[in-house]
């Protein structure tokens, strides 16, 4: 986990250095970086699919356990979103005062 956090900070330092040293190229670097990001997201989701697809037990159990998992994940996500919405609303009220 700490290695993962380390890479974010490494990237921030690198991005900051690039911005101060190569100020004129920030637009190009940003666009290229965005493109690489998109490809890496696709790669990681492909690999998540590989992990599920190559596990025979998981594939066989998918229909029965999947419905229960679906219900539990949707309910947890909705519950979180409702409280996040309430927090956001309460902040907007605070800003108006």
């Amino acid at each position, binding site marked *: 986990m700490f290695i*993962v956090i380390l*890479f*974010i*900070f*490494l990237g*921030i330092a*690198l*991005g*900051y250095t*690039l*911005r101060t040293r190569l100020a004129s190229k*920030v637009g190009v*670097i*940003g666009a290229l*970086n*965005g493109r*690489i*990001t998109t490809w*890496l*997201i*696709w*790669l*990681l*989701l*492909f*690999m*998540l*699919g*590989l*992990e*599920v*697809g*190559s596990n025979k037990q*998981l594939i066989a*159990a998918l229909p029965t*356990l999947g*419905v*229960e*998992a*679906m*219900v*539990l*994940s*949707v*309910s*947890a*996500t*909705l*519950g*979180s*979103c*409702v*409280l*996040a919405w309430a*927090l*956001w609303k*309460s*902040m907007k009220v*605070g*800003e108006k005062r």
Partner: protein
Amino acid sequence: MKGSLIVVAFFVLGVLAGRSGGMPEWMLSSGTSFVALCALLLCVGISIGLNPDMKSDIKSLNPRIALLPVATILGSWMGAMAAFFLMNNDVCSLLHHRQLTDCLAVDSGFAYYSLSSIFITEYRGAELGTIALLANIIREMITLLLTPLLAKWFGPLAPISSGGATTMDTTLPIITQTVGQRYVALSIYHGFVTDFTVPFVVTMWCTLA
């Protein structure tokens, strides 16, 4: 929407390729996906470093927003309770062989599917562990696919809450693309706090059986 469909396409392609069994061993190792994840986070870091407005972005956030991880955790538990009481009765018995603490433990994964499913398998067996894996993968998928809709319906904090423990890595790019760069700091902070609580709350609900 086009972006979401491409994401699903890559996942389905992965499932099919995994089933065919023709993939080289290195593609399946956790080491390869870890390297890809680190590369992804390096790119996310670079985009933060390239953004000159980062400092003012953090300052522009309301201090009350620090409570967002609490909203995420309590909201997930509210959802688990609602699902249990709606689906464990005479009318609907989908969850009839589950306990309330089972549902709470599964939903305490906050999309951190690898760790939560390992813990739950250890405490409650492989069946609930598989449900935890699927439920938390689905939660991550919901966030990846529906972030624009969630932001539209529930405001800019909802995709971060929905992403749970993943908002500092896998779902960070899609969230900041949708609600804006000024939420990068909040998203990382939220992911860090939520991620840290997963082992504790999952263990708590599993041992409260």
